[in-house]
């Protein structure tokens, strides 16, 4: 029995034996203090021109600076609804577990002190030199793409610090881009709609989530079958050609494109707190006790595994 199945078996066995259950006080969907609920680099995937190899880079170098991008975060602190926060961001190769601010391979982005929390936006302008330094260091360079980690640190009014991270991908042009298949450019748009919903207690909210699901998975029948089997994976052709002209094993990679919907509230409860966008049943919101007439805030954050992120905020007013 391989290690994962052993771990699963042992874990289930122990779970059944000891009757372990999650602590309701540690519900990730209830916002109690400073939180980063969403983080996105717009755009999360960029194609950059490459040049011939040199002594340090055996395959190619990035020739041009990548286009400017924007790092955007959804930051919430119900205890301090408004006020200055201190934010800082770093970028490094995604292979590293964390971006060491003092390391030579870490690029520190401009710090900011936004006056209005909830939506924070930082401009990002990398240079080709950054990419080539990472390229020389990166181990899986043969795939003609760089995965770069983006880290955000937010210091709250009470001195606490929270961290968030995502990934931005820089592709060489020899990579047969998913953009050709309409994936890279069809990221979820960054939105911040504020909607007012008046719900009966315990009402099921399903239709809005289904809209997202319908938008995301317009697949051929065969692919849909595969998606059902594997749990939200779609194919993309990623055969690529080296600058030397060698064709590298054409194959289709199976990219994770699952869009995960996370739900957060300040006072109420949601069930389930997170699910895949294709699940048809939506979620159930339960207002807090003795909260009739008082507004609650519900955040709906949608992630995909390639760095796409979008969110919406609903104000929930429970009808008596």
């Amino acid at each position, binding site marked *: *029995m*391989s290690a*994962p*199945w*052993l771990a*699963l*078996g*042992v874990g*289930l*066995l122990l779970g*059944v034996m000891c009757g372990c259950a999650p*602590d309701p006080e*540690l519900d*990730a969907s209830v916002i109690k203090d400073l939180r*980063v*609920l*969403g*983080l*996105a680099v717009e755009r999360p995937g960029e194609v950059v021109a490459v040049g011939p190899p040199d002594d340090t880079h055996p395959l190619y170098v990035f020739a041009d600076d990548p286009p400017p991008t924007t790092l955007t975060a959804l930051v919430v602190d119900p205890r301090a609804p408004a006020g200055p926060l201190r934010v800082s961001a770093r970028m490094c190769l995604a*292979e*590293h*577990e*964390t971006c060491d601010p003092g390391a030579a*391979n870490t690029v520190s982005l401009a710090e900011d002190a936004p006056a209005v929390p909830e939506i924070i936006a930082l401009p990002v302008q990398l240079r080709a030199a950054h990419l080539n330094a990472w390229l020389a*260091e990166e*181990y*899986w360079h*043969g795939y003609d793409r760089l995965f770069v980690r983006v*880290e955000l640190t937010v210091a709250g009014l009470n001195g606490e610090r*929270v*961290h*968030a*991270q*995502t990934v931005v991908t820089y592709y060489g042009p020899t990579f047969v881009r998913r953009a050709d298949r309409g994936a890279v450019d069809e990221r979820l748009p960054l939105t911040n709609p504020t909607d007012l919903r008046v719900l009966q207690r315990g009402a099921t909210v399903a239709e809005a989530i289904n809209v997202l699901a319908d938008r995301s998975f317009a697949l051929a029948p*065969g692919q849909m079958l*595969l998606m059902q*089997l*594997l*749990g*939200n*994976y779609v194919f993309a052709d990623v055969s690529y050609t080296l600058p030397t002209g060698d064709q*590298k*094993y*054409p*194959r*289709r*990679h*199976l990219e*994770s494109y699952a869009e*995960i919907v*996370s739900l957060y509230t300040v006072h109420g409860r949601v069930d*389930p707190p*997170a*699910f*895949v966008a294709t699940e048809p049943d939506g979620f159930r919101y339960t207002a807090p006790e003795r909260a009739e007439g008082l507004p609650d805030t519900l955040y709906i954050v949608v*992630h*995909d*595994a*390639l*760095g796409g992120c979008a969110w919406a905020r609903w104000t929930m007013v429970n009808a008596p």
Partner: protein
Amino acid sequence: MNRARAATLLGCIVGAALPAAASAVEGQAGAPLTGRVSDASGAPVAGARVVCGEASTWADAEGVFALGLSETPPPGATLRVEAKGYEPLIVALGAARTDLTLVLSPARAEGAGVTVSGKRAAAGQTRHSLDRETLRGVAGTGGDPLRALTLMPGFSRSPYGAGRLIVRGARENSSAVFVDGMRVPHVFHFGLGPSVFAPDMIDRIDFYPGNYPARYGQLTGGVIDVALRPGEADHWQGAVDVDLADAGGFAQGPVGEATVVAVSVRRSYVDGVLNAGANWFEIEDATNVVPVYWDYQARVDHTPKAGSRLSLMVVGSRDDLTFLEDPSSPDTERLTATSHWDRIKATYEQRVGPGATLTISPSLGVDTTNMVSDEELEDAAASEDSSDDDRRQEATLRVELTGPLTAEWRGLAGLELVSRAPGVRLVTPSVPQARSGDGGFSGRVPDAEQRALVLASPYLEATGRWPFGLSVVPAVRADVASVDGTRDLSFDPRVTVRQSLSPGLTGKLALGRYSQILGTLRREALGEDPRVVPARAWHYGAGLEWQANAATTVTSDLWLSRRVGSGRARWTLAVDEAADDGAARGEPQMVYGQTRAYGWEFLLKTAPAARVSGWLSYSLARVEQRRPGDAWQRAPFDGTHRLTTVWNTRLPAGWGVGVSGTLASGYPAPIEGGVFDARAGAYTPLRAPAEADRRLPMYHQVDLRVEKTWTGEVADTVGYLDLINVGNVSNTEGWDWDYRYAAPRPIRGVPVFPALGLQVRFK
């Protein structure tokens, strides 16, 4: 088969690399040890087994023995004498080698406690050898020999009381377990339960924490070799073991004039105990998980004529773990995880000259691992290609020729051929996970495939001994592996040196290189990168052994190792275009990394009084690892300090008491917080800097074993109670973090836990 034919045969197999060894099978063997075994009254002890190093013989009806030796034992070597009904006798060889008088004491029937044997030093390597009786009486192990072995220096502590063989802080896949030289995939049922070997079937376990001999390969860590017990030739005898988890039987005896048989079978009834417990306490859904295991071992030894021996051995293990959605419903959906392995091995030994032996050992193995639901089982049964896809089959042929080369040198030439058929297939259910820690793959690998492997490994080892106490063991092993037409080659030289410094005191040095090929994990594209290389390790060792007296041995070993390579895999999903079947397969990617480690191991084994014996060991192991561009970090099993002690005493009236204790540093626990990963909408842990050296609290535990032996005419009966963690110490084995890694709660280790058992040993 004469010597020339043997040399010709092996020469044909191993080619030109070995002619020197084959043609040099001549020379003089060491002078035989002779003597007489008797009891205290002077009566001969017929059938007593006399063992010195690798050689053994039996005393005749007059108690007289002549033990032929292929080489002269070094000063400090020990002679062990065993006979039924008598206490084992261990004596250190002095200058006298003939007309030895060995007097055995009657067996003490008051208990079956630990018997501490001397450390059997091989010609050069650091090897800890423990015999069956020593291993099965250790407190806290439930009589499990492999668990007892993990209390020896060189092993790191296994968390949660699980049966994990962690050698010198290295990852488990760096080390391996062999059964008489045949590698097996795992040796503990479900990773938690008892080992798959019945204690009665184990003759000896050799443990090499590093610098292992050339006959073992494809590892960068340590080696555990379990020697199964050959049946005894005089009469049939057997044993029945029953405890709360399983029951097993063992039998051995002669079949005809020249054949002996030993066989053991064990089956668990944890499933029944769980059911009964659930019914008794009226617990609903208590049997959602139904574990069942069983194992078997059998060995047949046939001696057709003097100087030859034929043996056949079969071993196997079955682990079945069934998850029931609704135990109360007969039609409930069930999910079954199975892990089966079977091995069969034949060995033919032929003496081909004075002190020279040719050994041919073909073996076959089948591993089956899958996790399927009822529905998937039905689908698999209906498909055409479902029958064998979830099995890995392996055929191995090992040929060894050993013999004296000159008066000082003894040689070993061997060849190991391995053919591993492709097709491990994990049929797994799709389990979507809304939150994934790394933001990438969030399902399970649906279909993993291993590639065909052909491995040819010639090896040479020579042992030189000189009268002034010097022994040198140079060795070399080459591994040529072919995976889907892609070849890996490794060439590993090794050498160990021992020097007798004074009577009973021996110094030793060892260094060598050890490789672990990429094997079935190698991929075409990754292989083009020069940094993707087989995992290689360099082991350096220096130590002292002191045989203070016949009952006390002290060893001290310093070691250092460095490892580099691509031995670990992470999985992505890909579709093989060439197959064009639309199926997705798991694709491993190599992870390149380095490891550096050093340590010190100390062992004191002694029997300070007639009824007391045990050992005290200390292990220091500092293990660090890093990936390119990252800083050195403590490896997960960098336990740093571990002190263990095992003591047993025999009391009057058949009572025996044993105690074992462990005091160990906490393992690294580097998480200091969490970071929100926006790709998954979940938090991932954030590691503290390496210099912070954050660890779990210190671990300490004491185990107690009490047993009582009733001696009868037909059988001896032993009842025992093993209390694991008798002090009910609440050790912290890990941290249970909240969703954003901000508030840890301790995960406690095994509380006080009783193991009750009964053994009936038929005489």
